[in-house]
């Protein structure tokens, strides 16, 4: 029945997808709030938390470990805010001061007690998603991988949090002042969000380590943000991308025999690049097309107005000819030809020999523009 749990590949892909989904749920709001780098800070400083929790309570997994180590994430945010509040340090510098210190202390402690802990400094940064299926706990007679349980739990909690406070989170993200005025305590909500981010980082730590986690929590929501304006859809796209990154990353990593976690994170980067380049409306290509379309429309309008101005006048014979466009509108021959062709195509003008005549729609276009201009006065 649970045979799929014995297949390492399935477990790895599942854990990867869950890391992505849990991170997307919280990361979406971090990216929208403009506090993405806090995720970077948190994911580094939980190393300190993990080692301290181990030294104090001798647990390396489970709810207690996640909760305890996640407190360091909150500590990071708190210390950063305190530094900013002292007005001696700017926000970006404050972030960059706190987490390296906590991370350094964590790494040193790890080095000193290396013999007793299952993680080494290498794993701290990179994780070992390839081995997550080895570490199992027995649940109802079935051996379930520890990481799967932890990530599944965090995904559920995050989904519950976002689901319960969806409206409040949206309000606090887009209009913090209004949220505060309405009594929604956006600060508290924000800390809740960051606490869950820390918890997710701790749960994902064994699988993807401190730095690769950042890719899941920032890059996927950022890619989704480039694709849509709706928060709901951002979350949906994020889920799909998480699964896709996990599946494709695993397949490529096995094929090329490289780091699985690294490859999954690289896939998120590729999604972002695609969204950045060819995303609808906000993508670079889409923007270039929009700009080009607008330029074309402007040229057609210019031509229509020019023809309209000289229609039925005595200068019509010399103004409304192809040749005049170069001198009077300063268009090159190639450009003039293009504009004329487009105008003919779209039915704004007709051409008789060298003479250009407006059609009814062309005249309407010109008048619409001129009337708008008149009204503007």
């Amino acid at each position: 029945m649970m045979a799929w749990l014995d297949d390492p590949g399935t477990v790895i892909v599942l854990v990867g997808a869950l890391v992505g989904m849990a991170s997307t749920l919280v990361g979406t709001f971090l990216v929208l709030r403009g506090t993405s780098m806090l995720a970077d800070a948190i994911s580094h400083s939980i190393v300190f938390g993990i080692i301290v929790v181990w030294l104090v309570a001798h647990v390396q997994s489970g709810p207690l470990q996640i909760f305890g180590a996640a407190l360091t994430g909150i500590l990071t945010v708190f210390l950063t805010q305190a530094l900013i509040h002292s007005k001696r340090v700017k926000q970006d510098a404050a972030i960059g001061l706190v987490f390296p210190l906590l991370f350094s202390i964590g790494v040193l402690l790890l080095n000193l007690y290396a013999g007793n802990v299952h993680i080494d400094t290498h794993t701290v940064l990179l994780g070992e998603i390839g081995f997550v299926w080895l570490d199992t706990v027995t649940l109802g007679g079935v051996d379930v991988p520890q990481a799967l349980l932890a990530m599944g739990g965090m995904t559920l909690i995050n989904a519950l949090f976002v689901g319960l406070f969806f409206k409040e989170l949206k309000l606090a993200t887009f209009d913090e002042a209004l949220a505060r005025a309405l009594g929604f305590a956006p600060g508290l909500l924000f800390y809740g969000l960051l606490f869950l981010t820390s918890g997710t980082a701790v749960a994902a730590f064994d699988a993807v380590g401190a730095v690769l986690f950042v890719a899941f929590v920032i890059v996927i929501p950022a890619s989704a943000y480039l694709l849509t304006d709706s928060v709901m859809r951002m979350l949906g796209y994020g889920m799909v991308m998480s699964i896709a990154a996990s599946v494709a990353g695993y397949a490529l990593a096995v094929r090329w025999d490289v780091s699985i976690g690294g490859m999954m994170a690289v896939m998120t980067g590729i999604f972002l690049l695609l969204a950045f380049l060819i995303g609808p409306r906000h993508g670079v290509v889409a923007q270039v097309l929009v700009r080009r379309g607008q330029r074309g429309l402007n040229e057609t309008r210019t031509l229509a107005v020019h023809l309209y101005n000289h229609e039925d006048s005595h200068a019509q014979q010399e103004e409304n000819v192809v040749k005049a466009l170069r001198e009077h509108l300063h268009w090159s021959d190639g450009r003039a030809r293009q504009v004329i062709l487009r105008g003919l195509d779209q039915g704004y003008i007709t051409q008789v020999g060298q003479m250009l005549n407006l059609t009814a729609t062309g005249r309407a276009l010109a008048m619409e523009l001129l009337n708008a201009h008149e009204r503007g006065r």
Partner: protein
Amino acid sequence: MTLMALLGDYTLQNVALGALFLGLISGVLGSFAVLRKQSLLGDTLSHAALPGICLGFIVTGARHMGSLLLGALFTGTLAALLVMALTRYSRLKTDAALGIVLSTFFALGVVLLSYIQGTGNAAQGGLDAFLFGQAAATLRSDLWVMAAITAIALILVGLCWKEFKLVCFDPGFASTQGLPVLLLETVLTVMIALAVVVGLQMVGVVLMAAMIIAPAVAARQWSRRLEVMVPLAAVFGMVAGLSGALASTLGRGLATGPLIIIVVSLLVMASLLFAPGRGLVWSWLLRVRQRRELHHQHVLTTLHRLASRHDDHAFYAEQGLLEGVHGTAVRPALKVLAQRGMVTLSTQASRQPRYWQLTLEGQQEAERILMAVEQGGASS
């Protein structure tokens, strides 16, 4: 080991020199980064150096410092340009762009690292030491590379000092003066990549961020002049680098990178607390002193009011009465005021309870305070 023997140790000399170079370049270049609110760019660029190191190794097939650093410089610069492109041509904010480039470049580095390890090239040993730095493995030849990079960066800063300064503090004015602001900003950014490259051997890619930020933030507390801040940051950087590197030679398992970062963080804390003028301790003391002074003035004016209500400028106020108004904190206040000659104790010193009287001087002072308050001006 005596101090002389310690100084004569070959490895230690290398480590110390390397740490000095690192402190120097990151202090100087970090100052500009912090002032331009680009602190976290150092974090991104240092993470982005990892794929470059791997590429340098893959291309040359050897662990030669020069080629690895060239690779790091290449991907670092690429990362900086990508951050600029993402913020300029997409709707993403700077922090998101920084996080994106940081994590994906690092992921690429991880993939390349695992690829190299899979090829079984014997020379790859210790390539992942660049994650946390490995000062003890510094060779004399590495030092030459680091020294050259540091020299280039310092000469550039020296040559363009005025221009960089202007770009940091008022880029708008700089561009009206006809300075190529975009070019200068790009140069400053690429130079951060240079600093990162020097730090890779000493503190590794992950902790380099703090090396860029911390010495500059510490130096900023001591001076508001760039001419002072930059050299001071360099000194802080060198002190931290040297002491961290030396401490790491004391025992096994003490990685250089984290130790250097802890030292430099201590320097930041000390500066935040004790720097003259800006230090938190001084401003706290100042606040306490001001609050006490205000209390003294309150007591003085209360005495004055009591006297004028009784139409008796030599009015004796019972201490219990004053305590009723100001609390028992009035006792030390009265003592201080008495020392200053503003109030006197009743001549019958044996009389219990005690009675206080304003002196002529105290009367004038109280009137001066009340006048100042009435005029709405701040009294000092």
